[in-house]
């Protein structure tokens, strides 16, 4: 065990699929993510999932 330090992370984003939403200028966005997180000497975690967003262009 070492001293404390914040996590080191890398967010990887792929499979971005976009289609128009009902309102003009808005889009439904799906993406996949993989978050690799390491902390201290050997603590490693991964979070994988799908994210849905409603995007609006300004």
């Amino acid at each position, binding site marked *: 065990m070492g001293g404390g330090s914040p996590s080191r*992370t890398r*967010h990887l984003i792929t499979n*971005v699929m*976009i289609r128009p939403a009902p309102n003009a200028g808005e889009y439904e*966005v799906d993406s996949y993510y993989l978050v690799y997180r390491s902390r201290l000497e050997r603590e490693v975690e991964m979070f994988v999932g799908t994210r849905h967003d409603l995007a609006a262009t300004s």
Partner: protein
Amino acid sequence: MREQGVRLLGEVRGSGKIEGHLTVFPEFFLPAGNPHDARMASRGPGELEVWAWAFVERDAPPEVKDSIRRATMRTFSLGGMFEQTTAKNWLEIQRVLRGYMARQRPFNVQMGIGHETHDSGGFPGKTITCTARWRRALLPSMGRDAKRGGLIMAAIAHPPKRKRRRGSARQPLVDATVQRAIEQFLYYEARLLDDRRIDEWYELLADDLHYFMPTPLQRLKREADREFSGPHEAALFDEDKRSIAQRIRRLHTGMAWAEDPRRAPAISSPT
């Protein structure tokens, strides 16, 4: 509610004046500071599982129930801002206890055994009352050293703002410029988080943000539509912009221990 409690349980137990956490030995407890919350931890040697419940009054209006649900999720359930730190501590304590030095020493699970009383102080049966000495000892040391906070738990960056749309992955048909702009935005957001520029990340959030990550449930194939928790059930995250701001403020307090410990945790020395 209080009158009802006093009628059912008597003055001491029903009046809501009990301070401290109630433990049903060895592993079930009701944190008194948050009456909506109870836990149990058990999964066999070396394994720990925590269940958190939120209690609501049966007759409470739906909006009150929903507000209690959200408050519990945002604080003391899996994605809760306090539970993040607590869970990390428990994991590290478990790891330390497997070390050589820790295994040479007896572990005190006495919990006040030998000091119990019977039918005393308004409590029926065998009870043990512990004083709040630890609290007085600990509290003065908190609140100093407002250091720079760490990074918020990584998973928080990803909840959707819309409700789940299963099986809706159609071929996208948008202009390449739009596609590129949106992808670049996602990459930029990821980069800000990886660089721990969390305040800048926060500035990107929409004011009407609904930041929702459902709980995955183990279901049979025919129950696939129940694979994820619904809008009024326990979610991993169910946040708005304001609650995310609270999480970030907490990281900046210097007391988000999991991400920014004050000092090295207990050291289990090598053999």
